[in-house]
């Protein structure tokens, strides 16, 4: 049963020292050494706390990762998701052996190749072909392996015409294509990928995602994929590990995991928010989201979403308000701003009510970002100011709800026989 487990992560922890590295470390080094000579534990391993960057800690040491445990089966595409600072990159670095863990171990039955970046080691003075060899070798291929694939790689990159030109003459897009082409032809047992897909033009991205799917589906390769991009995660992964503040929050199938990931911060988000007062020129003090006059985050399709924002504008400068709506995959679905209307703010300190009329979403969870602009620059942004839920409702006002899973948006139509 455990024979098909190819990678096992056991109690992995990684501790970092905060502040300036280099000052005061000699004394710590000495203390550490003295303790190890006497056969005692590293005195600095005990201190340190959970990695929560928004809270100020008392210790100089912090656990970027703590007690990480999970297993990966052969042929599985495992997603690793988490907010910024959750420990994704640290875990990646440990998996790719760039840095070593402070505690615990990772056991593997296959060779791991990691793609934390495309085009590592590219030398601008060398030609595309020479760089393919160098980059391939850095990623762990042998010369014979590259020889057998070189035509395929050049073909995939679509740079055949420039392959004997120094890379410094390439456009940045071509460089990325070439680099990704090399990476895509790696054949390790386990491939660890950071968000390298977010490169190149749309056509190339499609090609890249297709190649990734090929790798995992047909070749039965094991892939660990780290991303913020819920769309890509949804397309590629079968199972996901959710990291939160350096711990594994849960491991579940992709659909559930994405849902859970999106609710990590929901606790902070109610229907009324008071923002930390900032020393900016203009600022939002608080905001509230309402449905039919009642403070709530639950809506039905066709409801009006009312957002009330109180603003302080000491210098009385002209300001604009923008509202971004994002779906659960983090993709922006709507952009609303008072610059697209006749409305402008006249008072110094004021309260603005914005009504998003007849919300046209079938269902889902949406995130609202608020931002205050002055002189064309954002002055106060609140990411994830609210997360609101839309359930199917009677959008068309005919007493019928639109069937679930039947499209994403609702559009009023008029019908006539002519």
């Amino acid at each position, binding site marked *: 049963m*455990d024979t098909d487990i190819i990678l*096992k992560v056991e109690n992995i922890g990684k501790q*970092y020292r905060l502040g300036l*590295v*280099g000052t005061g*470390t000699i004394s710590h080094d000495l203390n550490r050494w003295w303790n190890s000579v006497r056969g005692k534990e590293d005195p600095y391993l005990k201190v340190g706390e959970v990695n929560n960057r928004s809270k100020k800690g008392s210790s100089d040491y912090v656990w970027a990762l703590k007690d990480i445990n999970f297993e990966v089966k052969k042929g599985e595409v495992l997603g690793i998701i988490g907010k910024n600072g959750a420990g994704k990159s640290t875990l990646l*670095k*440990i*998996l*790719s*052996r*760039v*840095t*070593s*863990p*402070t*505690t*615990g*171990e*990772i*056991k*593997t*039955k*296959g*060779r*791991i190749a*990691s793609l*934390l*970046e495309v085009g*590592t*080691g590219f*030398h601008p*003075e*060398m030609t595309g072909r*020479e760089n393919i*060899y*160098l980059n391939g*070798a*850095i*990623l*762990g*291929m*042998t*010369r014979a392996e590259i020889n057998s694939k070189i035509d395929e790689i050049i073909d995939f990159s679509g740079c055949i015409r420039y392959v004997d030109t120094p890379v410094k003459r390439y456009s940045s897009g071509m460089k990325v294509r070439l680099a990704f082409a090399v990476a895509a032809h790696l054949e390790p047992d386990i491939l660890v990928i950071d968000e390298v897909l977010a490169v190149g033009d749309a056509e190339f991205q499609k090609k890249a995602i297709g190649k990734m799917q090929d790798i995992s589906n047909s070749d039965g390769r094991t892939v660990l994929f780290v991303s913020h991009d819920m769309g890509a995660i949804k397309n590629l992964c079968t199972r996901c590990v959710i990291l939160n503040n350096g711990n594994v929050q849960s491991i579940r199938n992709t659909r559930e995991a994405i849902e859970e990931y999106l609710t990590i911060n929901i606790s902070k988000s109610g229907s009324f928010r008071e923002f930390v007062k900032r020393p900016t020129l203009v600022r939002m003090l608080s905001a509230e989201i309402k449905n039919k006059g009642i403070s709530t985050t639950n809506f039905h399709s066709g409801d009006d979403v009312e957002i009330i924002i109180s603003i302080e504008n000491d210098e009385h400068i002209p300001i604009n308000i923008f509202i971004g709506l994002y779906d659960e995959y983090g993709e922006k679905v709507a952009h609303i701003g008072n610059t697209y209307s006749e409305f402008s703010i006249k008072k110094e300190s004021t309260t603005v009510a914005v009504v998003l009329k007849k919300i046209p979403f079938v269902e889902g969870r949406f995130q609202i970002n608020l931002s205050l602009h002055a002189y064309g620059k954002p002055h106060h942004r609140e990411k994830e100011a609210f997360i609101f839920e839309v359930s199917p409702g009677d959008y068309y006002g005919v007493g019928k709800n639109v069937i679930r899973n039947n499209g994403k948006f609702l559009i009023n139509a008029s019908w006539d026989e002519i």
Partner: protein
Amino acid sequence: MKTTHEHWLYVISSKKKLIDFNFKEIWRYRDLLFLFVKRDIITLYKQTVLGPLWYLIQPLFTSLIFTLIFNNLADIPTGDGVPNFLFNLAGITSWNYFKECLVGTSDTFKKNENIFGKVYFPRVIMPMSVVVSNLLKYGIQLVVFLGFYVYFVNFTDKAFNVFPTFSLALLPILIFLMALLGLGLGMIISSMTTKYRDLTFLVQFGVQLLMYGSAVMYPMSYFMDKLPNYYWLIEWNPIAILVETFRTMVFGVGDLDFYKLAYTMIISAIVFLIGLVIFNKTEKSFIDTI
């Protein structure tokens, strides 16, 4: 846990072996080593007019200046029947290989931070590739030295006392020792600079000072005659011994001191091992400190 019957290819953990020189792995990455060497060689003099000629210009001009300053101006004798210029060229050629290995490997971690931070491969590959690509440069310089050697012996009467000795057969060992010593010191320094940046400055001028203490532009016997009280400073300097041994081999002046050569061998091996241990320790976590 029932881990006993499970077979793992390798384990990533925090535990460090003291000496972790995995030959099998390095062998698997041998193509990378040669590609790094190739990269160093084709890119070094790209877009220069003289190109690889620079390999020759540097030692030749340095020898010329040394001859002018140390022999003509300061009257340092280079031995009867050994042309000054040839003497200096021999010293500089052998010193250069050691120096290039040392300087080239001493900033391994800092220079390759970008690559090391993104991809794993045995880190030792990097300094090893420096040593190998310097070997090629050294080979070219050795050929030039040979050219001058033949010229002085056959076409001038200045080199009447110059005879190559059979000990020249030991040249590969000598080169190996220079590489080992340079690599070992370079690895120590590169590991320590990840934490203590001051060393970078020390290397630059330390290497210069070391050259004066390494019998590059004077014979060791002359130093003993003039400054017998300070002779111990260079007598047990392994690099001075290597440089002097090289000259003994090619010129046939003086005796080969096998005790000193054995001593150098031991020192080189120790330095290399210490370098390897520190390098191994550093490569595991330097990316957090650099």
